[in-house]
């Protein structure tokens, strides 16, 4: 493909592929504990970090990592303590994050609408060589963390109380998850954009779990789907001149629809082909 003769396209592709792999590897834990939308919230908070970076003439990526990590830890602490006010506290944090970001970006020297848009929805041409290094390094760190701690994170996300009684450092693992989520959101903002990063964490997992039977296989398939969607998304967006983040997400959603439809069709065919299966004994309470 001719477009990949340009260095910026190669950089955009590398960034997208790293995120395509890392985002579902993290997202599966978020989906498992019913926090599918948390990445979206942290994306809102990260925008304030971008604003701080632009205002202080520092790298927006680094300030976004710091601010979104603080936000993610704050959200996690609210969740741990939280009972009633958690939901409201999260909403306040999210809207505070995006409003703060818009105001701070507006105050900075580089306050064009286009600048704000590239952080919100991603852009192919903004990934600098330094950005690629940061994205690859942090992406690798996310992948290694999610792989090495998979049994422990699975235990915590599957049954937090059991994990506590097992003596696992549940609070530390939850904070690790929060910080890793913040890092993933921030490295994804260049290509996918802050408003769509959550989709790459969730949609590949949603697609994979239509046809998988176990956690590990779901994680592996989701990463393959994420990688494929990111690659195809960047290529299509370059050819068709569409926004890369949105294109990637639409490709991932198309995979979800295709797998869901295909899986339903296969199940229906199998049911028709199969003889009536042995029926499980019904759950009854045996009376003493």
């Amino acid at each position, binding site marked *: 493909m001719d477009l990949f003769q340009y260095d910026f396209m190669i950089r955009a592709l590398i960034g997208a592929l790293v995120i395509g792999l890392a985002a579902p590897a993290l997202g*599966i834990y978020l*989906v*498992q*504990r*019913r926090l599918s939308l948390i990445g979206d919230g942290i994306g809102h908070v990260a925008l304030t970090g971008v604003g701080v970076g632009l205002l202080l003439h520092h790298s927006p990526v680094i300030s976004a990592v710091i601010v979104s990590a603080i936000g993610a830890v704050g959200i996690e602490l609210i969740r741990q303590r939280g009972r009633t006010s958690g939901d409201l506290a999260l909403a306040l944090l999210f809207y505070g994050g995006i409003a703060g970001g818009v105001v701070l970006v507006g105050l900075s020297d580089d306050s064009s609408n286009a600048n704000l848009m590239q952080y919100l929805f991603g852009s192919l041409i903004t990934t600098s060589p330094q950005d690629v290094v940061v994205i690859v390094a942090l992406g690798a760190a996310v992948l290694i963390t999610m792989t*090495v*701690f998979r*049994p*422990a994170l*699975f*235990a915590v996300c*599957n*049954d*937090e*109380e*059991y*994990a*506590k*009684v*097992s*003596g*696992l*450092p549940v609070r530390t*693992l939850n904070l690790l998850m929060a910080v890793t989520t913040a890092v993933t959101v921030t490295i994804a903002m260049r290509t996918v954009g802050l408003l769509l990063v959550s989709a790459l964490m969730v949609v590949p*997992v*949603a697609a994979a*779990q239509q046809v*998988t*039977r*176990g*956690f*590990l296989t*779901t994680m592996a398939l989701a990463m393959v789907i994420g990688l494929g969607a990111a690659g195809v998304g960047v290529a299509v967006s370059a050819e068709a001149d569409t926004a890369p983040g949105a294109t990637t997400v639409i490709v991932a959603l198309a995979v979800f629809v295709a797998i869901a439809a295909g899986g339903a069709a296969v199940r229906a065919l199998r049911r028709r082909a199969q003889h009536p299966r042995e029926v*499980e*004994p*019904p*759950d*009854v*309470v*045996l*009376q*003493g």
Partner: protein
Amino acid sequence: MHLMTVVDVRHLAVGYDGREILHDVSLAVSGGEVVAILGANGSGKSTLIRTILGLVPAARGDIDLFGTAQRKFRDWARVGYVPQRLGAGSGVPATVGEVVASGRLARRGIFRPAGTADRAAVTAALEDVGLLDRIADPVSTLSGGQQQRTLIARALAGKPDLLVLDEPTAGVDAASQEAFAAALGRFAARGGTILLVAHELGPLRPLIDRAVVVHEGRIAHEGVPPEPAGHHADPGHDHVHPHAALEKAGICEWAPADRMTAG
């Protein structure tokens, strides 16, 4: 170790939101003993074991596990916890083998990857509860009773000395009840200590050395579980007590009659 007090609860009080649920409860479980905590819904029996496990903070009193104050206790691999049910499914599939493998983390720690010993323990635990043929199946495809056996296998995989079970017989099919009664029996025969909360015992009854009845946050009765008599022995008896007011003073089976309802 047999003579050791595995669980020692002294003058425990527990409350949520200013409302006290347990008042001045004392309970000692010796090594190798099988103790059932019985009581009606809302009696505080689940709160008692959740406090022993550190899931609920104690307001007053002391808890020792294996001779160590619970706050300083770190050897959690010696404790196998079997919750009432598998956490509500989130949609992400997990196989029976993956869930049971979580039981090895207390022994192995979070940094070491699973090894041969871990896989062997998972296999042995699933064999013990009769679910080895389902190891690669998603837990969501199992019946309620089979899910309960999966949770027992998860606890057994860690090779604990103490098993703590929260209502293991609630809403479980007869085949599964028999299967895990047998698994618990083998665990007890190996010298394991069992503390379980139950609404009714069913096939677990022969295993129980001692029954403790919790009523309104206090221990109301402690002793050898009596055989059910009269119409309570009838398998069709469904524990509905329209005549509860008349029987109020007596203890029906072990739990106070006025709180006993069908499971």
